[in-house]
């Protein structure tokens, strides 16, 4: 029972962290241009 008291909050916390990260990405427009994001890695930066 003691193990559960630690592990369950940890599991939920990690899950919430992932959910929060997704919401952040959604709000910041990370899903606006999926094709472009895939291609962008191939652009050579000269700076």
């Amino acid at each position, binding site marked *: 029972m003691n193990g559960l008291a630690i592990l369950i909050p940890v599991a939920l916390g990690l899950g919430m962290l*992932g959910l929060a990260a997704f919401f952040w990405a959604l709000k910041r427009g990370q899903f606006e241009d999926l094709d472009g994001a895939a291609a962008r890695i191939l652009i050579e930066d000269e700076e």
Partner: protein
Amino acid sequence: MTEPARQFASQALAATVLVVPGMHCAGCMGKVEKGLNAVPGVSAARVNLTARQVRVEHDPALGIPALVDAIAKAGFASQPRGEELTPPESAAKPLLAPLAVAAFACMNVMLLSVSIWSGADGATKALFHWLSALIGVPAILYAGRPFFTSAWGALKHGTTNMDVPISIGVTLATGLSLYETAIGGADAWFDGTLMLLLFLLTGRVLDAAMRDRARAGVDSLLRQAAPGAMVVSRDGSLQWLSAASLVSGMVMRVAMGERLAADGMIANGASRFDQSLLTGESGPVAAGEGDLVHAGTLNLDAPVDVRVSATGADTSLAEIARLMDAAGQARSKYVRLADRASRLYAPAVHMLAALSFAGWILAGAGLYQSAVIAIAVLIITCPCAIGLAVPVAQVVASGALMRAGIMVKDGSALERMAGVDRVLLDKTGTLTLGRPTPDVAALDALDCDEAAVTLALASHSRHPLSRALVETLTARGVTAADLSEVGEEAGHGVTARWNGHAVALRRPEAASGIATALVLGDRPIRLIAFADRLRPDAEAALTQFAQLGIAASILSGDNAGAVADVARATGLTAQASASPADKQAAITRLQASGRKVLMVGDGLNDGPALAAADASIAPGSASDVGRQAADMVFLGESLLALPRAVTASRRTLRVVKQNFVLAIGYNVLAVPLAMAGLITPLLAAVAMSTSSLLVIGNSLRLVRAAR
């Protein structure tokens, strides 16, 4: 950000969105962004490849033409996106957050449920149920909102849809689970409810994403032609005005190779006009001072000044638009397969649940036990796999079609396309390429020098015939000769000197049809005839239609002579000189005799027919109206895209039907168990996910549907 960019950031920046249809890879993105960032005054440029657009933040003093120039230097054509700066509302985006919440909650509740199923008991079980409720109830409220609002909207109007049984099932299941948790009962259904929402939302997101993607593709095509005109003001200066701001009485200067933005009368100059998009007529029509010319026609020979007589809603285009509106209404009556299924399904589900409740009461079970069983029936019959059956198959198929160069506007297009048994093809621009190409025999007759001089002369002109010559000769590997003293006289041709000889590419004195004459010193004059060629693979495509059991015929606005040539070449029957209303009537007649008609056309004159037909396709080279009215747009020149679209649609329909069988088959197995009171949350979860996975797996077979 670079140093100068930061300075601009402090000022108020203007934002401009430009459409760049030609971008398709990382290289293109890099070139456009680098080209724009090199312009002084631009602080940031970011390409959106999905929408084929670039958003530029720049000093307000910097005009749009400077940006267009910069992109042109990078090698791309672009147009400012005028009216609305914000991208069109996406259908999929508002569903992403509920989907994420449902997925998160489903995973965590499932984790707790697994421990309960594997034997957690007593206090642990109660704790886990309470934890599940803590995660599940808020998540269900949030993730279920799209369904609740839609169901409420339907109920308010006295109708029902797929969302009504879903909402009822979800609400009852959540209520029951909370009650069970509170009294320390045996089973809670939070996991099943969340899983149901997760799968249903997945289906919705896929469906919406498909429509978004197709719309982005079609939008970038539509915006290619920015209608507008160079207007001559009284002091003689020129100014570019968009079509919407043209007023009758203005004089617009229409360059060679430009499309008219409004109806008008020629005030100065004479030229020939290509009306093929408007009337389907393939031959150019000559018009001089005082003659009427129509919006949408292409100026072929020489620049002319046109006094605008009608704009916008008054033009000959507007009449076509009115016809199209009326024609489109018939199609909107089509009921999508998923909706038809839900119309049958929703009452059946409620009936079953009510029956099992009544049955158990009659059999002497308590009110509570009967309610639990009825709710179990509702949960188990909730159309999880049915909700996925249609969208997953259609998304996979439309993705496959898109890779094959066919853009599908929405899922119902695939359903309607699968049913066609008759195809009507427009001639100019659909069966044929819609632009003149030089006669092969005439080009073969040219010797090396003549070909080289022809190419050199043609490359100095923007005339459509010259451009066709350049394209064909370059493809043949001819290199241009060195010319001097090149001059072009509008309406007559290009003249120059080559190795001391006078050379010219000019309008022939007398020729039937379209042709150009090559004069090379004292050599005999060479006549190069032009003709509108059949699209490649036209015959193969028609053969495939025959194999599919689809009868084809031509429906053209062109004159009988020109249509007869194509009819002979393809072996099809034809109707010539059809007006837009005639075309629509021909389709209505066929539909009245029980045929499902596929219309293929490109012109403005095809618009009403495209909208009236059961399904329609337009080539990518079609007029704006054509592309907008059609269900699908195919890129490239090959007509094989047509039978391919039909075959893929039929395959999709077959898979959708199989999916329904799989989904309903699961219900046939699970419902008796539920009615007998034997279903536990574990069994419900297993059954639900198995049937959903089966449906998804079956749909993935469509990846190769467009081959």
